[in-house]
């Protein structure tokens, strides 16, 4: 596990897949990543039927 991953305490897949965040600035904690993730998910449109 890399130093960056150790520092974030993130699971391996989180650290790998959070490269956009990691590369752009300092490192976010797992709790912060989760909060950010949930925040972004709320942007998604509500699921609709395949018909209207």
């Amino acid at each position: 596990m890399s130093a960056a991953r150790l520092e974030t305490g993130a699971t391996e897949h989180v650290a790998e897949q959070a490269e956009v965040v990691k590369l752009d600035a300092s490192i976010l904690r797992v709790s912060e990543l989760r909060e950010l993730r949930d925040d972004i998910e709320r942007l998604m449109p509500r699921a609709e039927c395949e018909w209207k």
Partner: protein
Amino acid sequence: MTGVRDPRPGAPGRGPRTHEYLSTLTPELAAFAAKLLPAATTDADDPISLKIAPEWVLDFFGIEDSVVREQTRFASTLLAMHTILQDKRIDGDFDASARSLSDLLSNLLLADSLLIFNEVAGHAVEFRAAVHSALNDLAAGYTAEPVLDAQLAADRDRYMTLVADRWATVKVLVSAVGYRDGRIELIPVLLDALRSLEFAQQLRDDLTDWRDDHARGRKTYVLLQLARLVGRPLGECEPDAIADALYLGGGLEQLIAELQELLRTAVTALAGFPRDAFVAHVRYLTDESQAIVDGATARKAAALAAKA
């Protein structure tokens, strides 16, 4: 005898509405249909559609005859109702009794729809071949779905064909109007554009429904792509890993870029043809998806700024 009346449009400019159609069915079938498709009981012009508006097709071919437009709209609605019932049946939503009624109603809807589309097509012999081809494509779509895998998802063109096959009833609509117009060489032009739009809409649905799809074990294009980002087979990916890949790992940006590229392709394919309503719909989808990306970018920037 069921007492079913001819469902074809009557007075020019205003064909029957679905609630009028339902009133021609036996009470049992009508009640079943109303329960499953409550929108069909309203007086709306176009209560049910499958996200491909018949108006786009009519406008593309420049069909202005109000009777033909009404016939096309109504036949499309019946075809959409048929498709919805089929999907519900495939999803196992019915018990044995409901399956029987569903089969009857579904067959009736398909038959009535095709009868009207056949009139739209001017009874062209070739239209029958187009219907056969569409239903064969639909069968191919049903057959292919269970064998989806990461390899197929990596081959987008093959995957797009599969999605187009699942939407193959659109070919009935486009072919009927194309044969009415006579410029049948334009049928594949429009179908090609719709193929891109259908896949873009599928991506949108897959993005919004991914949690439910994942819970149901569905192997959608979006889930298969996200599993590749996670680096594990989809069956071994927990929802948390998928969510991380999607919202934090660049999956969202990548998939929305793909969606927007498909939308651009669809609009470009119809350049030079009447397509205002089509373009308006595409613009809506583009703006909606861009707002998601912009929102995600802003939130990521804000989270990083808070740490700085």
